[in-house]
């Protein structure tokens, strides 16, 4: 097959090269008549030739010799070990080659295909001939005109073919040989096919090729479509907005940091609180050990509260005058310090191992208390420090009284500042003692037998003066508040006597009909004094009002059971306190008529109360002294006596 294609390619080639101009001219001559409208395009630079020039035939000869082709190429053959001459390349140059897809129906391949389809190729050939004949008939008109050209072409093709024959001839012969062989078989088959053809008188079947085919397809049923849609709930959305600036960030950090600090503090406090119960637990065990200390502290605070509360309660129950009872035990004694704010219970209690007979507080240091005991000893308490132990205590064997201490008295401080006191006891027959309010060295001592001795501390073994005052023990001596030369005494002989210093005879004598336990001058008046008797009565005298009888007699306690033993004026207020032998103390308020202040005479308005009181007493005394003046010699006698 390749040779045929080469031929086909070659032929047009030679044709084109050989007669380009001739063809055009011939066609122009013949066709101009009926193709006038056809315009020929010609390049601009085409030469304009005259008629004879155009008619002139320029003979050109082409040959197949390639002048550039090498003639003696050699190649080293490794097999033989020598150079071999390479045969020269032919004049054929394949420019384009394409395998055809169409078969000529007379070709062997087509025949084979027909046979494969079970048809008789002969019939097909006949049909083809008939068709060809028709075509030939139609082409006969053209064939006559073209007949002139054919010989020229034929010559050229013959020349070309003649040259190529050497190569192609062998193949061509082989092809022909095959064709003949097939022809014979076809001959035999033709006869058979004729029979079949008679049977199948239908339309002859076309040969199949890639342009002649039948396509089959099946279309399946399409399912109908339906649209359905659903919408889910969109996720919840929110909006958020803000501004970011450096100071906003800074502030936020500050704020958060502060919050954290606060949190930490709270946390710490909470932890401490949590810890507290634990430590309290530990403290409990400690507390048991040191209970005394703790309870003391607690009690101190609680006691203070109680004290205040108690005072409040008592202020309500006892209006402003309080009446206090307390028994004085004989086996053991006690010093009780009261305050009027709480009359129901003493503020301070000093317990002693013996009955307390007398007490005195220091004029400058009121917390210093000296007491005399039943057993003869004396003690000094400093209640500010402690009530439990005495600050000072007399030796119970060598340095004590041999009898009941009736009275103790703070003496004025010594020049070096030391405090000192005096005590009076039964052992020396002294029953009471009184210091002179203006002369610190002078004091009066009352005795069991009724005498009053005027003594001086300077001379311990001598008496300055002796008053034969009473017949029974002297219980009290008291100086007048306004005139220190006047003093009063009382005794168990029922009498109260008023004396003037250095005068052995009393100025006044009062008989109250009972043992007088105590007598005191009033601080607010120079002429008033009060006395208590064993019959339980209080007598108040005012010499200015009545020189012979008391202006007031008041029974305080039952005279059968109790005896009054002590009386004292409040230094400022018109109140007296009275003590009895059963341990009961009563406070009494003096009625206004018992404490009338002096009215200043019209001429002497400028005088103060003190002076007027002194004047009042002096006036009274002058009345009493009158008889004394009459017997002046007696006075001198007295002085002579002493």
């Amino acid at each position: 097959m390749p040779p045929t294609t080469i031929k086909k390619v070659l032929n047009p080639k030679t044709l084109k090269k050989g007669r380009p101009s001739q063809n055009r001219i011939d066609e122009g001559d013949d066709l101009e008549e009926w193709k006038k409208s056809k315009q020929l395009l010609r390049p601009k630079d085409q030469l304009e030739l005259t008629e004879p020039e155009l008619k002139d035939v320029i003979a050109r000869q082409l040959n197949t010799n390639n002048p550039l082709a090498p003639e003696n190429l050699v190649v080293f053959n490794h097999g033989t070990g020598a150079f071999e001459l390479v045969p020269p390349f032919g004049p054929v140059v394949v420019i384009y080659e394409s395998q055809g897809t169409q078969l000529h129906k007379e070709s062997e391949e087509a025949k084979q295909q027909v046979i494969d389809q079970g048809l008789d190729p002969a019939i097909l050939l006949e049909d083809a001939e008939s068709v060809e004949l028709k075509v030939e008939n139609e082409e006969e008109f053209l064939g006559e005109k073209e007949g002139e050209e054919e010989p020229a072409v034929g010559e050229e093709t013959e020349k070309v073919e003649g040259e190529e024959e050497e190569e192609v001839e062998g193949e061509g012969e082989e092809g022909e040989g095959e064709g003949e062989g097939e022809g014979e078989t076809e001959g035999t088959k033709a006869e058979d096919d004729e029979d079949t053809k008679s049977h199948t008188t239908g339309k002859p079947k076309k040969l199949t090729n890639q342009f002649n085919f039948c396509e089959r397809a099946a279309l399946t049923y399409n399912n109908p479509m339906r649209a359905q849609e659903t919408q889910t709930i969109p996720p919840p959305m929110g909006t958020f907005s803000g501004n970011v600036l450096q100071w906003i960030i800074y502030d936020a950090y500050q704020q958060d940091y502060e919050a954290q600090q606060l949190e930490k503090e709270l946390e710490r406090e909470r932890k401490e609180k949590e810890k507290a119960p634990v430590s309290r637990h530990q403290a409990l065990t400690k507390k048991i050990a040191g209970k005394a200390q703790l309870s003391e502290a607690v009690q101190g605070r609680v006691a203070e509260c109680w004290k205040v509360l108690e005072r409040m309660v008592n202020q309500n129950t006892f209006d402003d005058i309080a009446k206090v009872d307390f028994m004085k035990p004989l086996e053991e004694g006690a010093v009780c310090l009261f305050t009027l704010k709480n009359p129901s219970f003493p503020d301070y209690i000093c317990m002693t191992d013996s009955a307390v007979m007398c007490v005195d507080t220091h004029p400058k240091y009121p917390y210093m208390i000296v007491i005399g005991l039943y057993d003869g000893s004396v003690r000094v308490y400093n209640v500010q420090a402690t009530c439990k132990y005495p600050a000072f205590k007399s030796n119970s064997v060598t340095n004590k009284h041999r009898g009941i201490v009736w009275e103790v008295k703070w003496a004025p401080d010594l020049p070096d500042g030391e405090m000192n006191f005096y005590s009076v006891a039964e052992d020396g027959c002294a029953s009471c003692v009184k210091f002179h309010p203006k002369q610190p060295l002078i004091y009066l001592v009352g005795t069991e037998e009724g005498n009053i001795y005027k003594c001086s501390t300077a001379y311990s073994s001598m008496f300055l003066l002796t008053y034969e005052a009473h017949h029974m023990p002297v219980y009290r001596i008291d100086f007048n508040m306004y005139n220190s030369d006047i003093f009063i005494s009382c005794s168990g002989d029922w009498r109260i006597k008023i004396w003037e210093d250095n005068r052995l005879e009393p100025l006044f004598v009062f008989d109250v009909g009972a043992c007088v336990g105590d007598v005191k001058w009033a601080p607010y008046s120079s002429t008033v004094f009060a006395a208590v008797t064993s019959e339980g009565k209080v007598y108040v005298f005012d010499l200015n009002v009545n020189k012979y009888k008391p202006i007031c007699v008041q029974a305080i306690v039952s005279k059968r059971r109790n005896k009054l033993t002590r009386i004292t004026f409040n230094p400022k207020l018109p109140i007296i306190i009275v003590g009895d032998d059963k341990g009961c103390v009563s406070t009494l308020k003096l009625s206004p008529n018992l404490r009338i202040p002096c009215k200043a005479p019209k001429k002497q308005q400028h005088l103060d109360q003190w002076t007027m009181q002194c004047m009042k007493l002096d006036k009274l005394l002058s009345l009493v002294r009158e008889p004394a003046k009459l017997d002046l010699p007696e006075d001198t006698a007295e002085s002579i006596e002493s």
Partner: protein
Amino acid sequence: MGDGEGREKPEEAKKIVHTYPLIRHSDMPEEIKQESMELVVTACEKHSTNNESAAKMIKDEMDKKFGPPFHVVVGEGFGFEISYECHNLLYMFFGGNLAIVIWKC
């Protein structure tokens, strides 16, 4: 910024500078919030000089961990108004001068 820092420094010398992560607002579940916060801290420390890459890192990680459409803003000064899917918002400060907004939408 250079001027601003210059002015702030003397103040900061007196006062304490807080750099800890501070959550200003968040509606995330606690676990996710903690995880996101740690992620922000990591990213901002890694890309301390480049907010953009820090934001990109946060966004990528958030997308990977909690599902894609996350948005992240990292900056020192900006304003914003955003719509976000509920329980997917985190607004926090870090390093004393950075604000980070993370939201999903």
